[in-house]
């Protein structure tokens, strides 16, 4: 039951992009086309799940054990960067097709604050290992969801007659704000 709660909470109620405003850079930058947004979302979900799986042992068995949990920021950044590097190498070797579709997004994910935020939230909320992995996956799903919705709206926006002053980034930010407001509606779910 707790796992389901974590999943729904991380993907909808406390959506990283729309509630915590983490990972805004790819949210605005790669949401032009639905296809790109989906690829970016999937790549991020993949990395987030792995991040949760790798950073949890580092935190629990190294940082807590040696009583230096304040190093978590640095340790997590190093671990995430190395992880993304490895994933990139592995994909390049195993499937050139996926590499061409996803490869350009991977370096972007390295510096995605949503991934670091996920690792930090995970230890802050004292999840156990399974819960952490579910949390990582759910966060990725939430990110993908936000990306897909944004790209869908932006594709429709191409056909809309946007006033000149709002064109480009400003209308995108206005829409992001409205989406965040709409996601506030999910907050009622958690009590039920």
């Amino acid at each position, binding site marked *: 039951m707790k796992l389901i709660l974590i999943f729904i909470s991380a993907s909808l109620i406390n959506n990283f992009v729309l509630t915590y405003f983490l990972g805004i850079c790819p949210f605005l930058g790669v949401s032009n086309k639905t296809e790109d947004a989906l690829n970016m979302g999937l790549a991020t979900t993949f990395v987030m799940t792995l991040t949760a799986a790798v950073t949890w042992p*580092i935190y629990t068995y*190294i*940082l807590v054990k*040696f*009583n*230096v949990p304040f*190093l978590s920021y*640095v*340790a997590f950044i*190093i*671990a995430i960067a*190395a992880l993304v*590097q*490895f994933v990139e*190498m*592995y994909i*390049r*070797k195993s499937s*050139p097709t996926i590499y061409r579709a996803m490869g350009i997004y991977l370096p972007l994910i390295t510096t995605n604050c949503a991934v670091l935020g996920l690792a930090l939230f995970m230890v802050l909320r004292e999840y156990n290992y399974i819960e952490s992995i579910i949390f990582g996956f759910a966060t990725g799903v939430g990110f993908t969801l936000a990306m897909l919705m944004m790209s869908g709206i932006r594709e429709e926006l191409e*056909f809309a007659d946007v006033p000149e002053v709002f064109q480009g980034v400003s209308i995108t930010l206005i829409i992001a704000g409205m989406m965040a407001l709409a996601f506030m509606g999910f907050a009622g779910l958690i009590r039920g």
Partner: protein
Amino acid sequence: MTGNIVIISMVSMGGIGAALSLFLAYADKKLKVEEDPRIEALLNILPNTNCGGCGRAGCRVFAEALIQGTASVTGCVAGGQDIADSIAKYLGVESVKADRVVAVVLCRGGEKETVKNAVYKGERTCVAANLTGGEKACTYSCLGYADCVEACKFDAMTMNDNGLPVVFYDACVGCWACARACPRDIIEMHPMERKLFNYCRNKDKGAVARKICKVSCIACGLCVKDCAVEGGIEMIDNLAVVNYEKCPQDDQPTKRCPTTCILFGEEEKMTKDAYYSSLPKKAV
């Protein structure tokens, strides 16, 4: 105690860092992908604009085709002669002279010359406007929503104040992008030797064409008679068509044209500098 924490921090972080770097170094060795270094070298020669003028998905695919020998060294139309020579030099083959083509916009009926019979309020692209017929009465004319300028990746086109696209003769690389983007096929690609063009595609009868556009081809046949070679210009579907294999490239046929739709040597006048210096100076 403080000293202890510093040491523990250094050791644990150093340990994590060292372990990860060792792991990555091992993975790098293990997962190395053998790639033909020539592809990278060719990509450095190519323009890397991925314009698709070579008929392939992008510069990388073209580079792979070059190495496999399925593409010609002159295949990169955007690069022109210089890049063809560089590629040939790199691959150690003989270079050939590439025919450079430029885009020619075969419509001069802009805002000032044409009659409008509709108001278009839809999406501001030519592809969409073409579905409804656009604003101008002439159904063969330029729609004026700049799909071609949008398609040009080489900054070689712009819309002038008359609502017509202008091709910069010196900047056009001949990649076909604009010709493919135009839903009315007004833009054609022509080798640089061709200088005589009939700037109209209207196939209506003369009386109709004259009413809707001041610079339309009214099929009077004067240019056909004035061409030095018999059959150099033919009248096909109420439109004077230049036969480039026969017609000598001079201004003879243009002299008596009543609507000045057939012109000689107009394209090469429109270089980038010439266009921008002809614009009225804006107050800064």
